[in-house]
């Protein structure tokens, strides 16, 4: 109700940067965890 789907054109472009950065950080975190688990030195 607060942010109607019908007005997605207004808010969707603002959501994209946050979503991209969140995904990038999750990917970086998973890679770091794997690096730690494997004891290696992964390069980003």
């Amino acid at each position: 109700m607060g942010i109607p789907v019908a007005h997605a054109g207004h808010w969707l472009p603002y959501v994209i940067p946050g979503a991209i950065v969140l995904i990038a950080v999750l990917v970086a975190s998973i890679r770091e965890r794997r690096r730690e688990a494997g004891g290696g030195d992964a390069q980003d």
Partner: protein
Amino acid sequence: MIRRAGSGTLLIAAWALLSAAVTAVMLPAAASAHGLVGRSDLPLPDWLFAWGSSIVLIVSFVGLTLGWRSVRFENYDWRAFGGAVAAALTGRVAQILAGAVGVVLLVFVVWTGIDGVDAPDRNFSVTFVFVTFWLGTVVLSVLFGNVFRAFNPWRAIAHVVAAAFSAIVGQKQTAPLSYPERLGRWPAVAALVGFIFLELVWGQTGFAASGVTPQTIATATVAYSLYTFVAMGLFGIDRWTDRGEAFTQYFGMFGSLAPFEVREGRLGRRPVLAGTTTWALPAGSLALVLTAIGATTFDGAQEGVLKDAISSTFQTFSDAGLSPVTALRVTNTLYLTGTLLAVAAIFWGGIYGMRIVDGKRSALELGRKFAHAFIPIALAYLVAHYFSLVVYQEQAQFTFLLSDPFGDGSDWFGTAGSGINYGLIGATTIWYVQFGAIVVGHVIALALGHDRALSLWKDPRTAAYSQVWMLVTMVFFSVLGLYLLSQANG
């Protein structure tokens, strides 16, 4: 070669955003057709500014990770100013003068509130409290430090009364109660929420019959004064001022950004921003920062993004039988609470992400350790949201409200006939100031977080790895701020 945690992945994210932004700019017709273009006086759609701020933050993060390898702000140097001027600024005469100015203004607010006209825009008290005092003191604090402590009228009155009482009874008075350290700044947070409630809920009913009237200002000022005097009497004047007094704490939070600091009665200088590293130590400091951000967020959302939702909920309460004024106040209370919780949720999301790096530290400890990094965001939100209001309303404050503070037709300084020049700054200038404030505030916040992470984890790689989550938080807050502004401006 980039070997720091997450840098490569984040640069790819920045590149993806930049590519998409460039594509969008190259295809303005398509963007316009989807209703994505902002105000016509901007060269780019306003959402692209949010993408730009995100790219700046990502690049800043990578820059900090690669170039900022040792702690800079923690355990900062403080050097006292020498000379008579510095001594005079913190001397007894200056303290008496500053306190007297504060007391005169306090009395004048109450007097004009009671005796002046009902129209809020023609009565000195409303503009003074909500613009000159509430916003103007923030500007002074950021530039010069916690100046309000010197001008605090309640502290000044209490010191005079205590000195007189001691002289009469012949011995120095001590506070009957010891201030519980675990209370920290929580009383200040509670009073701050009360002030925000008065401004954004009580005063935003949209009906002529209610709202913040000058009489309400006077009543609230007297009530807060009595509460403060009782608290000072119980816990000690300076102890209460330095923990529980809401305005000293609120302005002191912004004052921690300034390069000036008074220690043991001596004025000195410190590195800009460094004062924040010690500010957030007492309990309740984090809540104070988040409340400040949440209040501005709600004020912005109320005028734009939440407008329809508030209207709809208000209608539901009205249909349920509440009076219009009560229905709107209940509605706004719910949305204010929700906004404060949402801001806290974004903050804690970043903190819990940080615990991936260090599960040994509790979320509460990490939250407190990084609370100070959000002070620049609170300032950025304030500047972005209220810049134009200050520019317009201060024209009123120093012209007709100064010459005719009661609104009774007086003309003390010959400026009663002046008006507000709304053409002083244009919409485009306002937008660029808003955008600049948001970007700079969040970059500074990233830097403060990075410095604290280096101090906590020593290893630059671990510190950077922890701060990728701070980056997410910063991107969320910057984009949210720009979205709220675009909706409120639109």
